C-alpha cells in the first residue's frame, strides 16, 4: 500500500534540468532532487519559491507530477498568474528553492481495481499515482479518465497510454474523445468493476465524482486545492470545511481526502 504521511520534508536548492512548454499554457519543470524523489508519495506536493524578490511574496504549491529513477521530479503546471509566469522564466541550469515533500497523498488500495479521474491540470498528481501503480504491476487493473474543456487542454494521454494504461478522454466541446463531462463517461464503468476512485480537478468535477462514488458506495479519494501561505501546517490559512463541520488544513491533513469526509 502506498501511503503519504510521514516522509521527511526538507528545504533544498535544486538545479533545473528542464522547464519547457508542454501544451498551450502548460509547462513541465524537471528538477534533480534525489533526497525528495526517494521519499515522495503520489498526491504530495512541493512549495516552490518562484522568484527572488518580495513580490510575489509567498511560495506556490505544486503537486509532484512524476518521479524518475528516484532522482528527478517533474512538475506540470498551468500558467495562470504572477507566480507561474515568473516560474516559466527559470532556465535549464537555473536554481530553485523548494520545500517538500508535503501533505498527505493518495492511499493506493492495491487489491482493488483503480480508477483515476482527472480534470484538466488535475492530471498532475494522478500521473505519479499511475506511475506507482504500473511499477507495482497493477496497470492492467487500472484505467484513467481525463476530462478537459477542449483537446489542447487534454494532458498526458500519450504518456499514460505508453505506460500500458487504459486511457479515455472526454472534452466539453467534443474536439477529442467523448463530448461531455467526465462523470458521464465513468458512470457505467463504476457500476461494473467497483473500483477505488482517485480524483483531482476543478471543484465541480470533484463534487460530481464524489457524489457518484457515494451513490454506488465506492471508496473515493479527492485531492483538494486551497490558497496556501506556508504549506507546513503552521499558518492555518488553507483550511477546508469537512462534512462534520470541522475546518482542517488542506496542506497537512490533505491535500488528499476521503471524499466521504469532504463537505
Amino acid at each position, binding site marked *: 500500500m502506498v501511503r503519504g504521511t510521514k516522509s*521527511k*520534508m*526538507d*528545504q533544498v536548492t535544486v538545479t533545473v534540468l528542464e522547464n519547457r512548454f508542454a501544451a498551450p499554457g502548460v509547462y513541465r519543470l524537471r528538477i534533480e532532487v534525489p533526497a525528495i524523489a526517494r521519499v515522495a508519495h503520489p498526491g504530495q506536493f512541493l512549495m516552490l*519559491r518562484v522568484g527572488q524578490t*518580495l*513580490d*510575489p*511574496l*509567498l*511560495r506556490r504549491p505544486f503537486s509532484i507530477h512524476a518521479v524518475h529513477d528516484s532522482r528527478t521530479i517533474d512538475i506540470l503546471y498551468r500558467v495562470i498568474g504572477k507566480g507561474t509566469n515568473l516560474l516559466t522564466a527559470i532556465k535549464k541550469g537555473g536554481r530553485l*528553492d523548494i*520545500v517538500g515533500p508535503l501533505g498527505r497523498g493518495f492511499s493506493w488500495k492495491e487489491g482493488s481495481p483503480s480508477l483515476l479521474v482527472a480534470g484538466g491540470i488535475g492530471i498532475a498528481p494522478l500521473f505519479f499515482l499511475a506511475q506507482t501503480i504500473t511499477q507495482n504491476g497493477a496497470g492492467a487493473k487500472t484505467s484513467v479518465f481525463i476530462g478537459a474543456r477542449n483537446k489542447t487542454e487534454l494532458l498526458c494521454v500519450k504518456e499514460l497510454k505508453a505506460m500500458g494504461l487504459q486511457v479515455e478522454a472526454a472534452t466539453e466541446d467534443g474536439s477529442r474523445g467523448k463530448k461531455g463531462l467526465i462523470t458521464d463517461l465513468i458512470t457505467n464503468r463504476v457500476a461494473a468493476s467497483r473500483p477505488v476512485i482517485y480524483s483531482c480537478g476543478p471543484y465541480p468535477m470533484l463534487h460530481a465524482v464524489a457524489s457518484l462514488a457515494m451513490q454506488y458506495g465506492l471508496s473515493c479519494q479527492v485531492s483538494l486545492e*486551497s*490558497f496556501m*501561505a*506556508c504549506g*507546513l*501546517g*503552521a*499558518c*492555518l*490559512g*488553507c*483550511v*477546508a*470545511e469537512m462534512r462534520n463541520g*470541522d*475546518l482542517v488544513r488542506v496542506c497537512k491533513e490533505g491535500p488528499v481526502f476521503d471524499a466521504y469526509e469532504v463537505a
Partner: protein
Amino acid sequence: MKKTKPDLSVQIGLLRLQNPVLTASGTFGYGQEYAGLVDLNCLGGIIVKGLSLSPRPGNMPPRTVETPCGLLNAIGLQNVGVENFIADKLPFLRNLSVPVIVNILGQDIKEYRKLAERLSNVEGIAALEVNISCPNVKKGGVVFGTDYKAAARVTKAVRAAAELPIIVKLSPNVTDIVSIARAVQEAGADAVSLINTLTGMAVDVETRRPKLHNVTGGLSGPAIKPVALRMVWQVARAVKIPVIGCGGIMTAADALEFLIAGACAVQVGTANFVNPRATMEIISGIEEYLGRHNLKDIKSLVGSLIL
C-alpha cells in the same frame, strides 16, 4: 589578532535569550511544524500560536490572501485551547533548550487572568505574551489594544495572576501607540512587543466580493516594515522596559534596523512561510554584522541610531 565571537545574548527582564531572534506568534505553529527544517535549539526563543481558554475553530475560508509584498490573514485565532496545548503540544516544546513563550488571548479580563494562572502552574514556559491586539475577533482583543485604560487593566490582571515575565503585544491600529506602551509599562509589563498586524482588506473586482471571508484581515510581511520600525523607534524612546520589534522582518538587515532603532530583540513572522530557514539566516547574519563592525555584543547596537 584573534577575534572573539560576538555575544548575541539578550536579557528581557528576567528572561535570557541566547540570541535576539524569536518566532512571531501564529507564524510558527507550536514549533513542531518546523522541526524538520530548522534547528529549533538555535533560536532565541519560540512564541507559539495564540492560546485561548477553550479551543476555537477560527473563521471560515478564505482566510489568507497575498497582497504586494504582504499577506492579509483572518484566521480568527483558531487554536487548540490551553488544556490541549499543555497536554499535547507542551511536552515537545519542553524538550527544547530554548525559552518557550506562550501568546495568550482572552475574551474578557477574567479569561486573561485564568490563562495566566493556568500557564504559571506548568513547567516549561518561560514567559507570556499578552495578545491585546488581534484585530480579527469581534469580541476579542482589539478593544483592549486600542484603549490605553483597557490595555492597562488587562496587563494588571495578568501581572497579578502570572508568576512569569509578561510581554504585552501592541496593536498598530491606534492613534497613539506610545500612550498605550506607557500605560502597560505602568501596569507592570516586563516588556512590549510590536507591531501586530495592520488591519486591511482586499476586493475581487470581478465578483465585487471581499477576498477574505471575514472581509478585513491583518496585514503582515515586508509591506508593513517601515510602519513597524517607526513605531518601535517611537516606543523605545518613550518607555524604560525592553521593546521587541516585529513586522516584515525577512533578513538580517531588516532585523538590524529594528535593533538600531531601539528593539532589544526581534520576532520573525511571515518570513517563516517564505523561507523556513529565515530565522537561522538572520541569526548568522546578525553575528556576521557584529563581527564586521567590531561590536562585542548586541547591547552595543540596540538603540544606536545616529540622528
